[in-house]
């Protein structure tokens, strides 16, 4: 039983991180109807930019390598770059394509993926690097003592950061003027336009926020698996999460992430041995495919409100 719980909790915690990446997709899809294929590349870009700055900053400023000052300065600079990247993408790539069919926009974001990946490596180099957030990956002692379950401290803190981020975003969306406008735009572009909500501002804000979310995801994923090109593939795990949770639902992204995280770990442990293992990497996609057959709009996808 404790082993089961250990696997389950470990799965849930990594699920939170999938949800974090999925959130970036959802935000943009909801507000502008664009499926931003480049979100994974943005995560990679964010992590690499952060690491890059931590490497060069000591040289530029004379701060001690690895100190808190370098960390926060690099964080601020990486955040600024992500917001600039997000807003620039919206302005340069997507705005000229406004009113084009969704497939055109989708293709544009695929192109963008390659561009962003290339740009990141052109600036900072292509070799894999480590990223340390100063949180050690060790079991939390009191849980181990009291319940006999091994839970990584790193996973726990990462999940905590992600949850705080979710809550903050949810509150912003629910109770602020801009948040309301954002949901309004997600519901009905035209009507939002008609009451004087400037779509361009809203889109810029959404892309900025998506950049920020990508940065957080990039930091956590990067410090877990190293900052390398494979990060963009990890980000693609967000796809089954989205299919499960629904493309337009923030809670759906979270729940979907948890389900995917938990089920892939459990499947690996309990089904894996029968089929020779390695099930973790493809099980989520199978689950998603099954879901597509049964409930194509996802668990929490936009229920189309139809009046009869």
């Amino acid at each position, binding site marked *: 039983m404790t082993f089961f719980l250990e696997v389950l909790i470990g799965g849930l915690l990594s699920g939170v991180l999938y949800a974090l990446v999925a959130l970036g997709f959802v935000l943009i899809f909801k507000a502008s109807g664009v499926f931003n294929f480049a979100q994974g590349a943005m995560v990679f870009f964010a992590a690499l930019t952060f690491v890059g700055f931590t490497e060069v900053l000591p040289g530029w400023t004379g701060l001690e390598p690895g100190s808190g000052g370098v960390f926060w300065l690099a964080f601020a600079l990486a955040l600024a770059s992500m917001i600039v990247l997000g807003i620039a993408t919206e302005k340069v790539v997507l705005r000229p394509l406004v*009113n084009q069919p969704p497939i055109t926009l989708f293709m544009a974001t695929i192109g963008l993926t390659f561009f962003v990946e290339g740009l990141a490596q052109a600036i900072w180099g292509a070799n894999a690097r480590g990223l340390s957030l100063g949180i050690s990956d060790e079991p939390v002692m009191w849980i181990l003592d009291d319940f006999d379950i091994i839970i990584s401290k790193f996973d726990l803190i990462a999940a905590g950061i992600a949850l705080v981020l979710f809550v903050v975003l949810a509150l912003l969306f629910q109770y602020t*003027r801009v948040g*309301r*406008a954002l*949901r*309004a735009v*997600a*519901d*009905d*572009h*035209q*009507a*939002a*336009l*008609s*009451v*004087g*909500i*400037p779509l361009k501002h809203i889109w810029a804000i959404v892309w900025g926020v998506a950049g920020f979310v990508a940065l957080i995801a990039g930091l956590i994923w990067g410090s877990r698996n190293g900052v390398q090109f494979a990060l963009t593939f990890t980000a693609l795990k967000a796809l089954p999460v989205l299919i499960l949770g629904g493309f337009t639902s923030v809670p759906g992204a979270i729940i979907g992430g948890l389900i995917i995280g938990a089920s892939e770990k459990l499947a690996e442990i309990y089904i894996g041995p029968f089929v020779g293992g390695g099930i973790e990497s493809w099980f989520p996609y199978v689950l998603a495919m099954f879901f597509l057959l049964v409930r194509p709009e996802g668990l929490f996808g*936009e229920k189309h*409100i139809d*009046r009869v």
Partner: protein
Amino acid sequence: MNTANTTAATAAAPYLSVNNIEVIYDHVILVLKGVSFEVPQGGIVALLGANGAGKSTTLKSISNLLRAERGDVTKGSVEFKGARVDQMTPNELVKRGVIQVMEGRHCFGHLTIEENLLTGAYTRSVSRSELKDSLEKVYHYFPRLKTRRSSQAGYTSGGEQQMCAIGRALMAKPEMILLDEPSMGLAPQIVEEIFEIVKDLNSKERVSFLLAEQNTMVALRYADFGYILENGRIVMEGEAKELANNEDVKEFYLGLSGEGRKSFRDVKHYRRRKRWLS
């Protein structure tokens, strides 16, 4: 087609004037072929006409929502209080006091009624207490909205949605509302209720209205002045009362004629073919 002399309220400079505008969709489809009219301050003006006559397009070319549908005003100009507004974004125009209530209501379905109303105040940067006052004012005119304030707009009735859409526009403190087909799909009683509120807003809040309607009879009862659009041109204009008594209008839009009721089939055959312009 100048009507400056026909309405008493028209001052030297017209309040809203649309001058000979031509609208083309998608670079090829010519929808408006030189439409001109004016709305006096504090007036209710009705744009009438059949399906596809260009009523909605006219409203959208004033509120500049046209560009979002790949439409373009290629000729002519729109002036509001003496300044050209045709190159403005809807956001700027709402700040100047002109707001459109779109055809088909377009409430934000997943937002509550109250949130819907609050989005209407997006362009005003005002304090919480001022927002509250505005909300109360809207609830004063639409008491029904108050009872439904926390329901999702998508689950309210058509009439409530129409009220929500008008209330949302009111939250922007407009001087002028462009109201597109408020009667669409609503029971006659609700239509009556909504038009009464429009009249009320007009007389008490001094909001001017430009109204696009297919429901000619009701629209002419509440408007001061009317224009009839056909095939993207204005073919007739006049005081609402005159129009309501005009034989052709009666026959074409109200289905009435001098010799009493007539089968619609006959109307179609000999009269309907007569157009003012073709």
